[in-house]
Each structure stands twice: as structure tokens, then as C-alpha cells.
């Protein structure tokens, strides 16, 4: 495909991301190899891989929207609905479970007043129970957006929430 085929008129992405995508699809022997990085970048910028994102990425790569949806639904890290500003991911896999992961999840639910895969009414927090996040040595662990919080107790978790609430207030 010729280079001008890479860019998309009326892109929904920022100029920087659009430029990045224009390049990304040329880096692999098969265009569709760029799909997963594109989805992750797009999710970070837009907040979710929504219908508009799916349509544009399908167009950029030259595959069907169905193909894009097939991939999105395979990976739990990709989501089609927006999360809260801070997405709290509580691990309940074996190591964390043994060191109180389930209790931590129950605590978060109570503290935030929401259930698994729900978002607080103010849109600040969302909660999700996840599998191992690779922090077993310091279980129980929680990941908020891309940041890790480990060796947690319920008190420490409350402090973590407070910290984020303040951050949210500032911006």
C-alpha cells in the first residue's frame, strides 16, 4: 500500500497519535500486526475502544470491524466502555488470595460503594477483579491505571484512595 493510504481524513485521534499510527502500520510485514498496540494507545487516549475507535482502526489496517471486535473481546485489558478516571484492579489470584486479596476486593467494594466492573457516580473510580498482575512477591497487590500498590492492608488501601481522590480534585 502506498504511504498516503495510511492516513485517514477526519481522524478521531490527536495529531500526534494519528501520526504515530500512520507510521505504526508500516513497521510490520503484515499491517494487522499493528492492531494490538494501536488499540492500547487508542484506549489510553480516548478512554475506551469505542465504536468510533474500532471503525477507524479497522479502516487504517484494512480489516473488518468484526476482526477488531474479535481481538478486543479476547483481551480483558481492552474495554469498550469508559472506566473511571482511576481504574482500580484488585488481584485475587493465588498469591494475593492467600494474603487477603478477596478481603481487599470486598473492602474496595464497600469503600467505593460499587461492585466489580462498575464506576462510581462521580466517575473517579472504577473497580475490577483481575488475575495475577505479576506482583506476587508483595501480595496482596492492586493496580491503579498503570501504577502498582503492593503489600497492602485495608488501611494502606484507604490512604491510596485518598491520594487519588485528591489528585482528581486538583485536575
Amino acid at each position, binding site marked *: 500500500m502506498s504511504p498516503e493510504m495510511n492516513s485517514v481524513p477526519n481522524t478521531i485521534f490527536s495529531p500526534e497519535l494519528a501520526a504515530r499510527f500512520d507510521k505504526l502500520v508500516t513497521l510490520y510485514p503484515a499491517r494487522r500486526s499493528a492492531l494490538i498496540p494501536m488499540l492500547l494507545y487508542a484506549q489510553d487516549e480516548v478512554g475506551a475502544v469505542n465504536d468510533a475507535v474500532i471503525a477507524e482502526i479497522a479502516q487504517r489496517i484494512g480489516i473488518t470491524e*468484526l476482526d477488531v471486535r*474479535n481481538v478486543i*473481546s479476547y483481551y480483558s485489558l481492552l474495554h469498550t466502555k469508559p472506566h473511571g478516571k482511576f481504574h482500580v484492579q484488585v488481584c485475587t489470584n493465588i498469591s494475593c488470595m492467600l494474603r487477603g486479596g478477596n478481603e481487599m476486593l470486598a473492602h474496595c467494594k464497600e469503600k467505593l460503594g460499587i461492585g466489580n466492573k462498575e464506576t462510581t457516580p462521580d466517575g473517579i473510580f472504577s473497580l475490577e477483579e483481575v488475575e495475577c498482575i505479576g506482583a506476587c512477591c508483595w501480595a496482596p497487590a492492586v493496580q491503579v491505571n498503570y501504577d502498582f500498590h503492593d503489600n497492602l492492608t485495608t488501611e494502606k488501601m484507604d490512604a491510596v484512595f485518598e491520594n487519588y481522590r485528591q489528585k482528581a480534585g486538583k485536575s
Partner: protein
Amino acid sequence: MADVNLTVDGKKVTVPAGTLLIEACRAAGIEVPAFCYYPGLSLCGACRMCMVRIEKMPKLQTACTTPVAEGMTVHTETPEIAQARKATVELLLGNHPLDCPVCDAGGECELQDMTFKYGAPTSQYVEIKQHREEQQWSPVVYFDRPRCIMCYRCVRVCGEGMDVWALGVQNRGAGSVIAPNRQDHLDCEECGMCIDICPVGALTSDTYRYKTRPWEMNHVATVCTHCGDGCKTTLGVRRADDGMEIVRGDNRDKSGINEDFLCIKGRYAFDFANHPDRLTKPLIRQADRSFATATWEQALELAAKKLKEVRDTKGPDAIGVIGSNRTTNEENYLLQKFARTVLGTNNIDHHRTADYVSFVRALAGKADRAASLRDAGTAPAILLLGNDPTEQHPALAWALRTNVRLNKAKLFLVNTSDIKLRRQAKAFLHIPEGGYADAVRFLGSNDADFHGIEGAADFRDALRAEPKLLILFGSEFRGHDIDALVSFGLSLPDARFACLADYANSRGAADMGLLPDLLPGYRPVAAPGPFAEEYPNLPQKPGKDLIEMFDAAERGELGALYVVGANPVERYNVDPASLKNTFVIVQEMFLTETAQIADVVLPAANLYEKGGSVTNSYGDLQLVKKAGDRAGVRSDLELIVRIADRMGAKPQQLVPFGRGLRADTGQSRGAQSGEADRHSIWLASRQIEPKVSPFDPYAVLDEIARLVPGYDVERMNLLAGNDVRTKLVSIEPAASTTRRDLVLPAQDALFTSGTLGRYSAKLAEVHESHRKSPAETAAD
């Protein structure tokens, strides 16, 4: 490729290197169970049913993904393997609803068969099953999720086979599910391939779901009545109050020229036969211009009397006859024989959708250069000019896609539009509107430039370098353009040709001489050859073509018009008033625009309700068999004979019946009960079985085989349900070489089928739903 020797269950097997083990086993007559493996589709290895033990390999192996190797020793049925399959079935049944008693697939379900063979009577699983409601995805396709065993056959056949890619897999692991391309519905070609290929009852069709059980039907393999490809379709029929009702169409035995394929029309558009508007009683026009129902006696008598009257008073030239593209060869042959010998006129024609006359003439003396539909699936290179097979010849499109995919065939396209097959094309020459003649001239020339189209010369050079080429062309080519194209093709090392027409028996209509100037086999009426003796009173002067007949009617010179299975009033925009002085006899299934202006309407059977033969666009001859039956209708063959009889003609002279051997039909019961069958097969294969009725199409077929060049085919092969090649035999060039161009393409697309399509509720519904969808998205 070199051969490989292996041993399967103690049998020595030799197959070409690269063969998959599962196919090697099948070739040796050993069936290895498989859900996800499907010949011709990509390998998947998902279901683990095909497990076999290969000596010296650890663990069981999947026969569907393992290529054979020299010296392999394989076991396909051992207690260990049975145990593995039992476990697989148990897992598959973990969330399966086991609603076989109501499931469409019950009785012909691969999961049922495998459970019967390997399954355990109990299950380790005690979890509650997850139920999901059945979903309707399109006017055709329904999905019952819990029944799905995730074999991915549907996904692959839709994507790889159909090039539609409308089905996908979403989620992961045990949560995986088949999903349609528009989230909750499908936007696709509605072919039903996914439904037919589904080994269980997860995908079902609106037409058949919850209608009946497979064992309650008779299954009749016949030929689709819609487009010019002539697919074999198996109709499931069931007794109804007024005859035999067709309840299902599918591709059951896959032995046809279409192999795995059927489009929506072959599968679901049989429903016109069950339409409530079907005519089942003859109609006679009354003095007040209204129709009244009549007995067959009255209607046939009146039709015959009027034809006789006009012939005897105004002369044979005052009668016109119009035949059909959807009646059998036998009916077409008989109709023209009736016109020429009983009515005494050459005024006979049909709605032409391709210029076969020019094609046959251009190929005179080169009968071996005419191609079969089967060639489209095997030719190493194909040039397609004009036409859009995806819409107009779906089986051809399937064969071309498959050939490109599996055999890396090279497809060259010349078209004025960007047709879908372009995705399979190696090269595409996008020419301006009306540029076909020019394009052919360019292909044959050494010009550097063609309308400034980039790469045109490369296209031509690549094409000319092909050692073997199949040339297919649409109705855009007529007359001298066909000559030019054929002579270009003949200048290449090895080219074969096919001319695409629109209806199930368009080719047969032309071959059988539904033409004013040509007898069966394209023999000029002025040089009738053997017909001079066969056809007493054969007029030597070419008759009126279809347009001239209506012109004559306008002038008040056409006393009678006999229309069999055609709707010229609608097709040619005929003003009904112009026929006010013409006595019109119409044989039809419905009160079409033409039937509405008739004086006598005779309710006719359709192609699914009678026997005989049809010839597809490519000259492949196949038998049609009677599947449905409707009380009150009669075959066109019978009606022609009955009218002729009442006009005083001798049926024996029209139809050579009563000439067969007197056969001892043998015993039908007891130890010798097989005898009668073997005897009658022997007789039939030699065309000497007794034909005791003038309504026996095989009696007419005998005469066709005797008199129509190229139709003297091997009868046994035909009777066995195979497609048999007819040969185009050279004809003497007719006196005038400039003929009037009377080709009028049907303009049918995937979801339409001429007048017939209007009476198919399913086609109409799908057509409507697809017409709506672009409007919904027009906002962006």
C-alpha cells in the same frame, strides 16, 4: 509430488506426499471423525475428535493437521482413542442443551452421531448449563448459541469460501462465541453456506427451522431453477394436502457441479412453488373480459380450436410461439417441433440473455474449445470479461475464488465496474463504459496505450503469456464482438471459452432451437439437413422473432400467440392493447403480466415438479427430477402434447413413445427383487427402456440425442445424476451473417430472479432488507 507409503489400521496406503493423514485414511476407506476439519478450508485443529495413534510419536496426534510421512504406522480405532474421543464429546456436551428432539439437525447431526458412537451415558459435569436465547441474525440465519461446538467451520466458509467474512469469534476459552459482523445481526450474502456446513443445529435457517424432521422428508436431487450455473440442489419434500410440498433445499450430497456451493436461490428460493397465488385451475377469458375457471377439457379444447382456426384461415404465419428459459430441453424441443410441424410456422423465439448463436458460429469446428463450469475450478488461468459473477453467477464466482485460493489460479478481469471478484484477481483492467469491443481489439494488438490506463500493456502481456487460459464472457458481448474475442482467444496457445447467460435453461432454449431462423443444434431452417425428413411441412423461410411477432400483433396480423413459461409483456414492455386482436394462450404458474392479458391460461408445473434435462450456460447437461407436486397443474410437455392431439396431430409423430423394448419388469419381491432394477438400468442406459406415454420426457430426450448435434451423450452417466458435456458441433454459416441483436440481459442480482423471484417470499424479503440497509448508513 512423490508418493508416500504408510500403514493405517494394518492397511497399506500410498498417497502423494503432503496429503493430510485424515485424507489418506479416507482414501483408504477409513473414516476418522472430525468436527473442525473440512476439506478445502484452512486447517484449524480445534476439536480434537480426529485423534489417532501414530507409532513412535508421543501422545495422540490430530489426523487433520498431520501430513503423511514415509513409513508411518497409524491406528485409528483403539480403546485409548475411543477414550480420548469420549472425553472430547463429554466436554462438548458440558454446556450442550441436548435438545435433539426439537433441533433441526436432529437425525443428521454430527455431534449426535459421535455421541452415539463414542459418548458416555453419564457426565462428570454437574454445573448448571448456561442457556442463551436463540437469536435471529438476518432474514435467513438464526443462531442458537448453546448448541455451538466451536468448530469454526462457519467462520471459515464465510470468510475463505464466500469472501464475505461476516462471522467471527469473540471472547476467549470457554466463553468463546460465534458473532455476526454487525454486533447483533448479519450483513452478508445470505447464502446459507454457514448453516449447511454447521455440524450441529447451532446455525439454522428461517426457511426450515422447526418445520419438520429429516426422516419425514424425501430427498430429491435436482437442478436449481434460477441462474445459468445449474447447481445441484437437494429438495426435501413432504406430503401436503395438495401434493408434495418442498420444505427444504440444501446441498446434501455435494456431488453436483457446484461441489460445496449453493447460493440463497438454490437453497431457499424454492418457495415460489408454495406461493398462495399459484394457478391450479385453467382460466378462460369471458365476454365481459373477466376470467372464469374452466375444466382442463374446456381450456385445452378452446386453445386447440383457436390455434387450428387461425392456422387454417389466416395461415401459419399468423401464429407466434414464445418459449421459456426455465422449461426443460424436452419441452423446448417439443415446443419448436410443435410450432414447426403442427402449426407450420418458424415464428418461434424466447427471451435471449446471451448470444449463443454467434458464440456457436464463432467456435464452429472447435467443439473442444467450449468450457464446462468445472473448468472454472481447475483452469490455471482465467480471463473474465464483463459480467459480475458474484451477483449473476454465484456458483461460478465460488469456483473462481476456490480455484484462486487452493490452486493459485490467476484471474484476469476486464470490467467496467469494480466487481467484487477483483479481490481475487491477479490483474484488473478497469475499462470505460462500453469499452469491451475496444478492449478485445487492444488485447489482440501491440498498441502501447489503451485509453491511458496504467498497466494495460502489462495486463495484455501477462495474459498472452498464459499457456492455458479459460475465457469467460458476459452478455456484454454479442455478434461480431464475440467473433473478435474468440479469434483473439484462438490466437493464444490454448484457450477455452464459455458464454454466460442468465437463466437455468437459457442455453438449452437456444440449443433446442427456440429461434425463428435456426432449428435445434443451430441448423438454419433453410438448410434443415435431417430435419427435412423428420419434420413434415417444415417451412423453409425464417420466422418472426419476438419483437416482430408483437409488431405483427400491433398491425393486426397475429391471430394467435402461444406463450410457454415466459413473461414478454413485462420484459419487453408490450402494450396490452396491441394484442387485442390476438388470441393469447399462456402456460404459467402465476397470473403474470402476460397471463393477465391471455384468453386461455393453463396452470403449469415448474422445474421442481417434473423430469427432464437442462443445459447450463457452459453446455453441461443435467437431469432434473420431480420433487414437488401440486394438485391441479400439469407439465408444459404434457400440455403441448395435449393441445397438439386436440388439433388433430398424431402424438406418436411428436413424441417417439411406444418404441422401447417390451421389458420383463421381473419380480418386485422375494429373492429376485433386485433383478427388475438391474434390468431396467440396463435398458435405460441403452435408451431402450419402454416409453409407454407421450408425456415421457425421456422419449423426447431420445429424439434430441438422435437429432441435435452434441447431445448424444452417455446416458448412463446422465441417469446417475452427473453433469455431462454436450458438444458444440459446427454448423453451416447461415445465409445472413448480420442478425438482429435481440439479447436482453435479465439484470438479476443475488436476490432477484426475474418473474420467479417476485413470487419467492424469502428472496423478496431479503432483497427488501438489503435495499434498506444502505439508507440507514447514508447519514455519514
